[in-house]
């Protein structure tokens, strides 16, 4: 019996015992105007440009607003912007802000604030860097108007300003936005629907957000980061709980109202409690992955990489990650998020059907592999990477590979994977990760799909074909063109095995039934969420 089994058993028993019982005194005393939320991780810093962790982005979306917001149809919609104009040659974008926008310190939001904020964001964001590369000038025309002049058209401008991928282009006061993008800000003043209560922030334990009375929501219905962000409670308290069993017990006991992502092991327990609702949190899910180091043998030979793809069973990986709940995963013959408008799995045959170990072994032998150790980094403190690592070790052994299984923690993987030295000298051959589906819809914010050698993500794949097709997507002008381009990117990336996708999986979110208005999305949206006593 291991620790997780003990937790599950106890939490399960607790769930059954509590069914039908009233909330304890501690919950009854809590105000219905305060929503208590257990986030996916600790809010260790609060600069959404300096730190790009999802948890920071999620908290920042409460405090800072964006010029545009992505909606549930994945379309950019105006948010702080009232109108925009594009010149005939597509090189000049002129934007006008909505009137009456205010920062939490009472100052109006001006175009100069936007210019400073966009400059800071662009220095850290992949799409922002693309814009900077073709930027002629970014200037404030008047208090409410600013202009972005480019040397060549950039059709994805509105998407770049609306996207929910970290870092988002949050708008801050100029004095704050002038901070070096590689240094942390020290003031947390935004113009979003909630204020950050810095005095109550206990990093690692608690963060508090208070309703901003002067926020002027848009009139449209809220849809993800777009529309009217109506806040229905006075306070939102983020309570960090490192232990999932404690979070499950606290939710059952009414000590918290909403748990962002319960682990799969405990979902069945929560589902049995009549006071709790459980549903898929983010329909865009996640893509599991492992990356092979393209710089060193054996994976510097595409045949070795293909041999691994040929043999890997995505079902094995997905069951290791999410268990037996088949509603939580699906095979993914490619790199892009399924069920999205431009999804295309062209060229994904190698990942489909029965696994062919004989052919894979033959191909591996042709690559010249002769039993040298394969250094496989596996972070044991992340359930997703640990589960994938165990499956990969088995897969490689069945292929006849000599696995050097390096069980370590995520912090160590994070630094070791950046090493370009040979595997025997501190480098590596493989590491495991996963990508939020929201980041993998298109190549826009999809760093892991890039294959530009030294400049690519860890593993440094070099696939000119993939890069060419990515450029094709950026130039696409219609959704049909985009979809076709995505197909070509998928095919090229699979041919050269930029990385190995291990499948698509979803996670749940859970909340007390006295909370309403929770919507599915790539981040927890607090607007429209209310709570009864």
């Amino acid at each position, binding site marked *: 019996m291991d620790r997780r089994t003990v937790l599950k058993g106890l*939490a399960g028993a607790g769930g059954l015992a509590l069914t039908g*019982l009233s909330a304890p005194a501690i919950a009854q005393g809590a105000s219905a105007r305060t929503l208590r939320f257990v986030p996916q991780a600790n809010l260790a*810093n609060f600069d959404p440009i300096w730190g*790009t962790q999802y948890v920071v982005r999620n908290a920042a979306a409460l405090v800072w607003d964006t010029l545009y917001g992505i909606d549930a149809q994945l379309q950019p919609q105006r948010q702080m912007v009232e109108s925009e104009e594009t010149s005939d040659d597509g090189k000049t974008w002129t934007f006008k802000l909505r009137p009456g926008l205010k920062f939490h310190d009472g100052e109006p939001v001006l175009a100069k604030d936007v210019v400073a904020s966009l400059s800071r964001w662009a220095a850290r964001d992949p799409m922002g860097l693309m814009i900077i590369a073709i930027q002629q000038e970014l200037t404030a025309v008047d208090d409410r108007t600013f202009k972005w002049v480019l040397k060549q058209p950039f059709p994805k401008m509105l998407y770049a300003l609306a996207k929910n991928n970290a870092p988002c282009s949050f708008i801050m006061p100029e004095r704050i936005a002038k901070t070096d993008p590689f240094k942390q800000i020290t003031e947390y003043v935004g113009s979003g629907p909630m204020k950050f209560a810095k005095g109550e922030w206990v990093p690692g334990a608690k963060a508090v957000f208070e309703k901003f009375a002067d926020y002027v929501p848009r009139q449209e219905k809220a849809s993800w980061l777009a529309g009217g962000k109506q806040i229905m409670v006075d306070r939102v308290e983020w*309570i960090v709980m490192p232990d999932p069993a404690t979070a499950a017990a*606290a939710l059952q006991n009414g000590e918290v109202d909403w748990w962002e992502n319960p682990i799969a092991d405990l979902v069945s327990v929560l589902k049995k409690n009549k006071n709790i609702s459980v549903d898929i949190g983010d329909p865009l899910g996640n893509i599991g992955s492992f990356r092979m180091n393209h710089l060193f043998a054996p994976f510097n030979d595409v045949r070795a990489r293909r041999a691994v793809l040929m043999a890997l069973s995505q079902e094995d990986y997905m069951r290791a990650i999410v268990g037996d709940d088949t509603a939580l995963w699906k095979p993914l013959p490619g790199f892009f998020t399924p069920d999205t408008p431009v999804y295309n799995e062209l060229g994904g045959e190698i990942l489909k059907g029965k696994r062919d170990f004989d052919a894979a072994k033959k191909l591996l032998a042709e690559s010249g592999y002769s039993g040298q150790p394969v250094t496989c980094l596996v972070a044991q403190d992340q359930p997703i990477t640990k589960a994938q690592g165990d499956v990969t070790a088995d897969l490689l052994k069945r292929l006849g590979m000599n696995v050097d299984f390096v069980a370590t923690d995520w*912090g160590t993987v994070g630094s070791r994977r950046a090493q370009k030295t040979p595997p025997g000298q501190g480098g590596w051959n493989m590491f495991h990760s996963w*990508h939020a589906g929201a980041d993998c819809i298109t190549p826009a914010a999809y760093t892991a799909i890039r294959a530009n050698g030294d*400049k690519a993500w860890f593993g440094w794949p070099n696939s000119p074909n993939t890069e060419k097709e990515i450029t094709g997507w950026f130039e696409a002008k219609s959704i049909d063109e985009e979809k076709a381009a995505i197909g070509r990117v998928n095919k090229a990336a699979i041919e050269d095995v930029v990385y190995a996708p291990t499948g698509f999986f979803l996670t749940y979110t859970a909340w007390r039934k006295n909370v309403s208005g929770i919507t599915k999305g790539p981040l927890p949206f607090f607007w429209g969420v209310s709570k009864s006593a």
Partner: protein
Amino acid sequence: MLSYILRRIVATLPVMAIVALFVFSLLYIAPGDPAVVIAGDQASPEDVERIRQSLGLDRPFLVQFGSWVWRILHGDLGTSIFTNLPVSAMIGQRLGPTLSLMIVTLLLTIVVAVPLGVVAAWKAGSLIDRVIMGFAVFGFSLPVFVVGYMLAYIFALELEWLPVQGYTPLSSGFWPWLENLILPAIALGCVYIALVARITRAAMLEVLQQDYIRTAKAKGLGQGGILFIHALKNAAVPIVTVIGIGIALLIGGAVVTESVFAIPGLGRLTIDAILRRDYPVIQGIVLLFSFVYVLVNLMIDVIYTLVDPRIRY
């Protein structure tokens, strides 16, 4: 005595210096890079390098160490790499919950373990002794998190007497403060109670064989008086020692207990800092813990003189 205390306090300085050097060196050579964690998964190597530079992590070891020592000498524990908050402020935020947990656990231990140990020694070899020692073995063997979850299940989920998690400061009232600490203190105290009970029993057994105990019995003294006035006082030195040493156990156990009961204390801060490689915070906490440990040892030495007048420094 006063000069002894002063000498001991001065003697802590080289100990602290060695601890500081050791911790700093260990962190320097440990794998992992806070810049990578900060930069996020999608960051380019250039971004990571720029962050590393901005944090001063690219400087040579001696420069970094010298700069850290200089700050420490000026009473500045530095700034957290991640939160951008002063380490002293972060420790200050977390000190209350941990201190509360340790005090309640310590009181619980003394109140429960010492009488149990005395009774076990008094009834040595009997069923009562075996039951108490059986409990001690059980308490010592069970991991803190298992006890914690069982307590949470029974007393929070099943009976709804106490909350599952969290911490309420004493300023919000005595009961709100205590109700959050009862279950964690029992969970954390189990090992400690077992240890102290066993040591108390062993020390008492030895004392109870002494001639003066026989004399006390012959004089017709009551059992309670013999046990708790004459015997316990003479058995106190090893008991006090183990209570002091046990504080190290409490520090280690607090890390797990605070995670299980979501108490925002120093234990959780330590774990978070280690996982993120937040070097200034780790260094600050280790320095604090080592200082506390040295101080506890000093207090034990002073307490020796109170329980045993023969001891003089």
